């Protein structure tokens, strides 16, 4: 399809639900509701907060409690959403979240939002901090409904679900791609592949992270780390949450809410009686890197998708790739 037909595609997608896409907001980008194509900046590199915010909210009420009657599930008005313009790394990250939140014990809040979300991917070009290629997450094989491959003046539209296909029924702006289009696609992918500057030696990452967890190489970074948890909040696969309960002033009704949590906070591994399984910043630092260096067994995908957010938004300037390469012995 021609890039000029983007508004037509959006109106077809609006048949499904509200469209949310990458919008420039101050210095950074953010997924927000959009009404027209020109509100979006489709050449963005990464948003600060990943799309996980649509499925597990930064802070949300999950149960209502009445001090006499007990708990009930808080239901929200079902709402269809089109997430437009996700990059391959974020699509792969959602696949990891799906495997956790929709496993044998599906999370009712996540599952219902996920089912009501249509995902439209878009191809991207890396900046200096992207290392999805090292992680093998620079391409999305599935986990989306539609994907737009940029080939210059137009897109090649990849359809990956019946839901996506049915929305495009009768779309007269779509043309069958021609041989030249595929050659442009190949050219784009070649150019993209050559643009990655960062490389994480990821071939034996789980073993390396595990076996070198006592290494002194961590110390340099641990001493700089502010343990603020920013990296957790901006990470598209970090899914830890904490749970709180609040009662209103009448002491009759309350809510149970959950919030994104961070394994950098002291409370993360604290148990009753004050015992802490990860008492030091070193423990917590290495824990996060270990967690991110694992492979999700259900999807076969790494827990880190190489989006670079944790590096870009780290107030102490700690570089995820540099830390692991350094512990591996590649850097220094």
């Amino acid at each position, binding site marked *: 399809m021609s890039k000029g037909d983007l508004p037509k595609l959006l109106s077809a997608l609006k048949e499904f639900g509200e469209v949310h896409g990458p919008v420039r907001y101050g210095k950074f980008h953010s997924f927000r509701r959009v009404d027209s194509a020109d509100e979006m900046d489709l050449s963005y590199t990464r948003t600060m907060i990943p799309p996980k915010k649509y499925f597990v909210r930064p802070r949300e009420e999950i149960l209502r409690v009445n001090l006499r009657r*007990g*708990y009930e599930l808080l239901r929200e008005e079902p709402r269809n959403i089109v997430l437009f313009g996700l990059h391959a790394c974020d699509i792969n990250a959602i696949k990891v979240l799906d495997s956790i*939140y929709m496993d044998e*014990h599906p999370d009712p809040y996540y599952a219902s939002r996920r089912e009501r979300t249509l995902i439209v991917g878009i191809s991207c070009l890396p900046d200096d901090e992207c290392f999805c290629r090292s992680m093998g997450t620079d391409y999305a094989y599935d986990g989306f409904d539609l994907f737009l491959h940029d080939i210059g003046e137009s897109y090649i539209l990849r359809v990956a679900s019946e839901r996506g296909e049915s929305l495009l029924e009768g779309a007269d702006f779509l043309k069958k791609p021609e041989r030249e289009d595929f050659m442009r696609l190949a050219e784009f992918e070649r150019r993209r592949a050559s643009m990655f500057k960062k490389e994480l030696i990821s071939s034996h990452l789980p073993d390396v*992270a595990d076996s070198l967890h006592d290494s002194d190489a961590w110390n340099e970074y641990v001493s700089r780390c502010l343990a603020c948890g920013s990296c957790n909040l901006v990470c598209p696969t970090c899914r830890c949450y*904490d*749970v709180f309960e609040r009662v209103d002033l009448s002491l009759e009704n309350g809510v149970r809410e959950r919030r994104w949590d961070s394994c950098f906070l002291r409370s993360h591994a604290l*148990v009753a009686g004050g015992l802490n399984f990860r008492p030091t910043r070193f423990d917590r630092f290495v824990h996060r890197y270990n*967690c991110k260096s*694992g492979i999700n067994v259900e999807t076969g995908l790494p827990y880190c998708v190489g989006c670079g957010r944790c590096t870009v938004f780290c107030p102490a300037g700690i570089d995820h790739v540099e830390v692991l390469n350094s512990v591996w012995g590649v850097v220094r």
Partner: protein
Amino acid sequence: MELQEEQFVPKPAEILDIREMTSIERLFSLRFLDEEYERSFRYMPGQFVQLSVYGVGETTISICRSQTRPGPLELLVRRVGRVTNALHRLRRGDVVGLRGPFGNWFPVEEMEGSDVLLIAGGLGMAPLRGVLQYVLDRRERYGDVNLLYGVKSYEETLFREEVLEPFERDSGFRSFISFEKDDPFYEELMRRNPERVRKGVVTVLFELADRYLDPKNTYAVVCGPPVMYRFVLRELDRRGFSPRKVYVTLERRMRCGVGKCGHCIIGGATSITYVCKDGPVFSYFDVLSIRGAI
């Protein structure tokens, strides 16, 4: 959707009875208000529930009873945090919320035909009591049953009648007790039963129990404070217990109970494990390959 909700919404349960166990621990008997749910509620020794005090919050408590024994669900709760303090303020007839049961359990069926060695330290007796009851209720299916229980003092001993019963009469198992503080009761018990009682930490009991232990044909189950595991596992190792026949149950912070909230994650990159759904019961063999488990 119904099934998912059941795991996330605490079910109301009435406190039938509260028994004072120690100055900080009480035994709560509970029954679900929904009779059908109460009838269908099944659990195994080693599993846990998420217990909610309305308006205060939720906490993880292991089930300390075997379902082979008729009667209500029992939870032994130490008053140690916000929720457990609130729970201790409740009275008989009050209603709390329960979710569960969660987690795996001690392999009581696989253990049939073998001797059973229970090793508990302090509050660790709570989850092991379910195993003990289960085994005693199917006594003919198991060999020798030995309990090594390390406590601080008589006052802090949990389920006193049950663990001390073998000193009075044949109870189907042998009980060994170690105590740490000066304690007239245990000093007297030790004077009368020097072969079963000793002062010190729980590992001092191995010497007393050794002549009854057959490491080749024994399943050992261990629960206690984190510091205890390393020492107990070393003793078991030294005696040639197979790592596949030694089981521990672990404690971690948990919010969800079903592998979502991430607090109970243990292990490194090669072995990311959720204590709530992959455990809380692990074999020593598992523990050896999950970094940070012990």
